[in-house]
């Protein structure tokens, strides 16, 4: 099992890439910064699994990322402390600082 690139507590940015193939990275999270709140087991990435590559697909660490709702939605109507969690394969994440 590959060592996860990001630790719990790290600030990460969801890559703002175009979906060329099947992905389960929602558009509304792309380009946004969140904090890694948990690790998930290594899975075959959906980009491969969607094409039937269950056995020989690329496996990657997955992460739970917690976003502040006010970071995701500029017009958020709830409260500052509200959050949203979602999961990402490593290829969709990058350190938050680098591209600022």
């Amino acid at each position, binding site marked *: 099992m590959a060592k996860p690139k990001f630790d719990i507590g790290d600030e990460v940015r969801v890559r703002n890439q175009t979906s060329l193939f099947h992905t*389960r990275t929602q558009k509304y999270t792309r380009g946004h910064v969140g904090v890694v709140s948990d690790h998930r087991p290594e*899975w075959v990435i959906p980009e491969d699994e969607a094409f039937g590559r269950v056995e020989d697909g690329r496996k990657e660490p997955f992460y739970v990322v917690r976003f502040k709702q006010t970071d995701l939605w500029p017009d958020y109507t709830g409260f500052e402390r509200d959050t949203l*969690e979602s999961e990402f394969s490593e290829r969709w994440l990058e350190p938050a600082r680098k591209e600022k």
Partner: protein
Amino acid sequence: MSGSHHRHDGHDGHDGHPTFPVASRVSEFEILELAVRELAIEKGIFSAEDHRRFAEWADGVGPHGGSKLVAKAWNDPEFKRRLLENGTEACKEVGIDWLKPTGTGTPSDYTFFYVLENTPEVHNVIVCTLCSCYPRPVLGMSPDWYRTPSYRRRMVRRPREVLAEFGLHLPPEVEVRVHDSNQKSRFMVMPMRPEGTEGWSDEQLAEIVTRDTMIGVALPKAGRTSDEDVQAKAAWR
């Protein structure tokens, strides 16, 4: 349902009462399902018997598995610890095996199960914006509204307003945490044990842990035992 003693074949009754058509119309989705199913059987991906067995399982599951998990966890801190640590394993203790009946996990894909514990500080709620992923082995089939684009797109960006539409108003000091099931994890909310339930047995507690409380759109209350106990009236005459 009781009522009509005789059936017409999908046309208005001669006596002026509307009758309910029996499969007089088929949606494109149903045709697609049938076609894919027949192809899969023909190709030997699964058998008609496998399909029947799965359909039987799917029709039989409901939220009672989840209710049992929560009730047991409320009464037994050790079980609660195991449940939060490894949801899939702890499920076996109440007779739910996530690998059954397909042998490769529940349909929709192989999954990992996580129980989200509500606290006085954090209220969890689940949604799947990509399709309608749902922890079927413990909660059964998802309610229709859970699958609607309206719930899915609004829960992630206007959670407090959507919760208010369900009658749930959470104070500003509680963090609302939305979980979008976009990958292989499936989630269930473990609500907080309500007041007035001291000394209750697992069975008594399970009755108030309804489906909606485990999705996170409602809170359990001593006395309220079903999400669907409202007698609906026909919307047309």
